[in-house]
């Protein structure tokens, strides 16, 4: 049996509970910072779940959209005089338009052809951000203006420290993002995506416009990545082209696959693990990277469907 109708509610309740309860155990404000990084990564990875887990399409260039969202928050307030929040929305809109233009030609490709083409797109964005030094400050990066929301909250009596505020805002956006992705799963669009993942030819014969739905998944996941980039830039108050780099793209896909690309909660878990593991593994000092690589290999060898689905399967197996 597959758990279904309650899946969405259970996921959202657990996610919200963790976000709300975890701070009780935080010994220092540093943990709020780690938490908000987890949420920001989790948001981008949730978008990838729609593309990778639902529709079965790979992208190795999604950090490009993270970069667009981040630099929109750096550039639009300065050059267009936009409020940073509106700049984030502009970035999301721009990412959607670029995803539409890029997605149409490259989503015709399959498997590793699509992987390489999307990789090219990511590299293109990070090159532009590095080379347009007059506008972006080049490889050294540029400052990002204050969102200003925290000061606004203070006037109505909600006084949060900087790290607390970003923990709360990122957590809230992540819950909304997870809610949207879970809604999509059990809808006509979500079924069309999962159907074309299962069998493109059968999907087409039941009337699913495969190219159209692949493009929709690509655009939605690009918007998730863009919003995640905006949140990251706004809380760091600084941005460098690394945010759009190849490594970040790979990191996002790895998070999704490690946790279980088919499930929203699994992907967020994957994001949490890959965000915190490097901090934990610092006890191994120079062997940190080695341990990280080893853990990733072992998970993929023994739990190919990803951590969460594998654990869920084992628990169910024991229950029966």
């Amino acid at each position, binding site marked *: 049996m*597959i758990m279904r109708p309650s899946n969405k509610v259970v996921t959202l309740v657990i996610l919200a509970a963790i976000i709300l309860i975890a701070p009780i155990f935080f010994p220092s404000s540093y943990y709020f910072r780690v938490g908000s990084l987890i949420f920001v990564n989790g948001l981008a990875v949730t978008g990838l779940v729609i593309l990778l887990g639902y529709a079965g399409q790979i992208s190795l260039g999604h950090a490009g959209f993270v970069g667009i969202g981040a630099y929109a928050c750096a550039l639009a307030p300065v050059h267009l005089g936009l409020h940073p929040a509106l700049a984030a929305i502009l970035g999301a809109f721009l990412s959607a338009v670029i995803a539409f233009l890029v997605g149409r030609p490259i989503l015709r490709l399959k498997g590793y052809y699509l992987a390489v083409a999307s990789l090219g797109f990511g590299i293109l964005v990070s090159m532009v951000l590095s080379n347009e030094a007059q506008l972006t400050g080049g490889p050294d990066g540029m400052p990002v203006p204050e969102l200003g929301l925290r000061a606004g909250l203070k006037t109505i009596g909600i006084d949060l420290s900087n790290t607390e505020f970003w923990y709360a805002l990122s957590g809230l956006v992540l819950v909304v993002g997870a809610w949207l992705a879970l809604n999509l799963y059990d809808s006509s669009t979500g079924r069309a995506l999962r159907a074309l993942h299962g069998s493109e030819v059968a999907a087409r*014969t039941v009337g699913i416009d495969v190219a159209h739905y692949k493009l929709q998944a690509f655009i939605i996941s690009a918007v998730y990545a863009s919003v995640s980039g905006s949140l990251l830039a706004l809380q760091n108050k600084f941005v460098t082209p690394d945010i759009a780099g190849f490594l970040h793209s790979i990191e996002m896909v790895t998070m999704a696959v490690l946790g279980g690309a088919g499930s929203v909660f699994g992907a967020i878990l994957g994001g949490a693990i890959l965000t915190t593991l490097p901090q934990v593994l610092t006890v191994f000092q120079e062997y940190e990277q080695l341990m990280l690589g080893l853990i990733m290999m072992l998970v993929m060898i023994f739990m190919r469907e990803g951590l969460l689905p594998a654990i869920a399967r084992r628990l169910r197996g024991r229950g029966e």
Partner: protein
Amino acid sequence: MSLLQIEGLGIDFGGLRAVNDVGFSLKPGEIVSVIGPNGAGKTTLFNMISGIYAPSRGRVVLDGEDVTRLPPHLLARRGLSRTFQNLQIFQSMTVLENAVAGHHLHDRGSVFADLLALPASRRRTRASEASARALLDRVGLGRACQQEAGSLSYGALKRLEIARALALKPRVLLLDEPAAGCNAVETEEIDHLIAQVADEGVSILLVEHDMKMVMRISNHIVVLDHGEKIAEGEPAAISRNARVIEAYLGAQATEVQNADG
């Protein structure tokens, strides 16, 4: 007036004439079977009619409209659906979800409504689920709704494909070996199901190796050999056709004549 008209259809694969100059027609509610030895081009013919291959020659006319080379999803909108010889199931979805996915053209809507789970979106899903459950009951899979499709037996998957194709509410249904791998009881069930669907006015084009079934339910039979049509006619005439017996029926001829008599 015929609902589906095939005229001089042919396709070449790298200089090889896989199918050549095949033509026939289907009236509403009629069951037409395509038979012939393995490699005769039956599935290739199906793939051309259903838009998966683009034919090199000829026309496919659906209800008076030339639909040659239309992609499958546009043919589906015009009421043409099919099943596959090598199963094409959405493996990681549940049985119910597979059947619901067949309702795509009836429940698709705005992606924003789907993302926000607006009442309209949920209503569409619920309507499709109710219809899918009825279809699954009809093919005898009502109890398997929540199972993962990949866990079903071969015969059950064949019936699931039929349910998914029926979800489209097709006018023309192409069935590629629906009874292959099914036991005698299952074959009979599929047999009844096909006859019932045809009774409701759906035209059925059938590829099947079970000659007893073909002879029993077909109104008309088209025989292919080496990509060409070598005969067509009513079952009784086909089972006595010398060229058909030589090319295909051969050893099966006695069996067929017994079934016929």
